[in-house]
């Protein structure tokens, strides 16, 4: 579990946050993420994040479901256990369409939820470091990754001058871990 150094800046206003994001990015710092209490329109764009490929994954799961349904039903009804149902042909495509549709939806939905959880590193028992507890209440928390050369006091001054109401430096686990929060050192902030 590699610990990493982060500079954290807290903002209490969306309208201050956006210019600050722009300033920090153009100054060459790498923003890890901005934690917000609610979805902020256009923030992903301002952060320069790439489009998610979750839809592409969803499409692939969907056609996997379609293929599964078509091959399974056609094998069962024509080869494995042909039944005469109301005199219909064994290969009765219209009757299968609802099931094909349902399996397509099921595969796409379940697959996308699991992929989403994987991408967000969410799972039962998984813990992640909280940079600021008020990120779920009323603060926009900008987290900037530090390299060996980052001057943290300069960066904090930059954040302050761009309207951050609170800044600090945290040593934190970057990814996720199983277990409790005991092995995570929370910063001494209010």
């Amino acid at each position, binding site marked *: 579990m590699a610990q990493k150094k982060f500079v954290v800046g807290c903002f209490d206003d969306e309208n201050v946050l956006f210019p600050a994001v722009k300033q920090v990015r153009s100054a060459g710092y790498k923003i890890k993420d901005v934690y917000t209490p609610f979805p902020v*329109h*256009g923030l992903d764009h301002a952060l320069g994040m790439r*489009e998610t490929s979750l*839809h592409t994954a969803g*499409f692939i799961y969907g056609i996997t479901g379609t293929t599964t349904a078509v091959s399974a039903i056609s094998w069962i009804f024509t080869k494995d256990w042909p039944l005469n149902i*109301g*005199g*219909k042909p064994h290969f009765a495509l*219209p*009757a299968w*369409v*609802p099931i094909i549709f349902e399996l397509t939806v099921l595969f796409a939905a379940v697959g996308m939820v699991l992929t989403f959880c994987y991408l967000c590193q969410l799972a039962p028992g998984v813990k992640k470091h909280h940079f600021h507890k008020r990120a779920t209440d009323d603060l926009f928390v900008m987290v900037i990754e530090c390299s060996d050369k980052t001057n943290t006091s300069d960066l904090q001054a930059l954040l302050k001058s761009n309207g951050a109401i609170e800044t600090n430096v945290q040593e934190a686990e970057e990814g996720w871990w199983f277990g409790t929060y005991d092995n995570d050192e929370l910063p001494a902030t209010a």
Partner: protein
Amino acid sequence: MASIKEQFEIPGTLKTWSYALIGIGAVALLYGMVTKGFSTDEHEQVHFWGTLMYNTIFWTLVTNAAMFFLCFSTMAMAAWMQSFRRIAEAISTLVPIFGGITLLVLLYVVIGEKHHIYHWLDKEAVAADPILKGKAGFLNPTFFIIWTTLTITLWSYFGYRMRQISLEADVAPMDAAAAHKYNVRSMVRSGFFLVWFGLTVASTIPWLWLMSIDAHWYSTMYSWYTFASSFVAGMALIALWLIYLKNKGYMELSTSDHLHDVGKFMFAFSIFWTYLWFSQYMLIWYANIPEETVYFKHRVQGAYKPIFFLNLFINFLCPLLILMKRSAKRNFTLVAFMAVLIIFGHWIDFYQMVMGSLMKEHVSLGWLDFGILAFFVGVMILMVARSLASKPLIAKYHPFLKESILHQV
């Protein structure tokens, strides 16, 4: 907003094209009327009046769908469409014109007792037929004429009222109280249209105008199917005009974000149409009762087989696969292509709904169909352009306009 081009000026090429289309269409219409419509051969008569019927009904319902779009958006207090609401308004000004043509054609068919089109007009056949006798309370000339006239009049009137209240947003800025009052009044007016729309397009009108061609047959899916078909074509028409005006340098406030949502409507309602198509087909296929399968017999196994499955290909597979991606719905060229394809596809859908029942033995698709289509397209282009030019392109003091400008998908 000083830099916004509010006034649409009709380009010369648009006029030339629309006059050319109307000219071609009028020649085809007159020639068809003389050689077929008033010929003594009943088969030829059915060909002409049937072709005219499905074209005029299709375009009436498609243009009316634009007003439906405006009204349900108003009712839902939607803001995103305010930047291009004048396009939908301009398209809906065609309802009285196309509705008038529809009314004339249907009156001619019903009063002229063209029982080869509507079998229930044949009094002797009805008297000897227990099924038709049972339906006579609904399928009779008096009710048909009254309900059709009332329907077209009220569509036109409620649509006119909606367009009038939109003009009030051109006059002066509104404060919060005035804006609230304006919204409530808009919603009340759209409510009248929506209720009448539900009673007509979503139920009785497709039964009367289209389904009664197969007087013995019925399907509970039919009206929703017709509605879905006309609504998705209506959204495609709005998209086409939006793209055209953007290309000409108007509609600066509408961006690819707005196009994205129009594209979503085209995509979603293509799927909805397919859902109804399939539900209607599968239930009849599964039950396999002769009086129900009679509708699909010549469509799935007879002469209309290519058209019937082409319909499903254009209106389901193409939108599903092409419009699925986000980038496709934001691409002006691709959406324009898909809009033309969808309008054509649903025109073909109306063709097989009407002519598939009137001329079961052979597919009549030819010069008459495309000629009359050219007439309606020409009239549509000319009248929508005139209506757009007659008032500002933006309802600039509409309370929701700012939200529409900020719209982001």
